[in-house]
């Protein structure tokens, strides 16, 4: 089974729920478990929040979310053309946040890693960030 869905939306926190909903709907074609759906929703929420809060912040912009299905493999790509990440290793470290004043917990990447099979981050300062997450779904007996 192959399928894809590409979306772009304004960088607004209110669109996090929309992005989670779209991703969950797309995942239904894998016949996923309730747990798997919930995992994807959580990971998507973290990735989109990062793009909105850290990628663009007050400047605003467009967040892109692409969903791909290939067999039992789901790939989610969330990208922004925002400010980019200087030190990806540091950003991925649990509890590290560049925005402690915004009460960010620094757990975003750790949560994505916990709920997906793999998480890849590409970023260039001043150009933007792309997060690629993969997960095998519907592999239940």
């Amino acid at each position: 089974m192959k399928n894809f869905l590409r979306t772009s939306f304004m960088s607004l926190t209110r669109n996090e729920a929309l992005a989670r909903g779209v991703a969950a709907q797309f995942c239904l074609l894998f016949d996923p478990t309730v747990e798997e759906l919930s995992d994807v929703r959580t990971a998507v929420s973290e990735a989109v929040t990062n793009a909105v809060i850290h990628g663009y912040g007050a400047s605003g912009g467009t967040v892109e979310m692409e969903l791909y299905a290939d067999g039992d493999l789901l790939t989610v790509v969330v990208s922004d053309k925002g400010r980019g990440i200087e030190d990806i290793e540091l950003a991925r470290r649990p509890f590290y946040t560049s925005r402690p004043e915004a009460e960010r917990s620094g757990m975003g990447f750790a949560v994505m890693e916990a709920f997906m099979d793999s998480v890849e981050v590409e970023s260039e300062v001043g150009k933007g960030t792309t997060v690629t997450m993969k997960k095998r779904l519907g592999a239940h007996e």
Partner: protein
Amino acid sequence: MKVTVKKRGRVMEVCPEGEIDQHSAGELRERLDSELEDKRIDRVEYDMKAVSFMDSSGIGVLLGRYRTISARGGTMDVKNARRNVELILRMSGVYSLCTERSRQ
């Protein structure tokens, strides 16, 4: 988001409903901060049974309010979290800040 707050003397029970993400976390934070202006409160009990979804934005809210409460020498508890919420709470060490009662 809908939040039910019940106060019994020094204890405040908080029951958020629905989805906690960066968008709704702001409302929850404001509500709790205004309730915590009552300086007598030194114990916050979160009942998460009606929270259908929470990402790490919720952790920021809990840890921030814990700072306020612990500065008063107070305590916190979090109970009835669903699987994914539970996992995030566990990963981020929130349970280690709770009193013995809610530690599983």
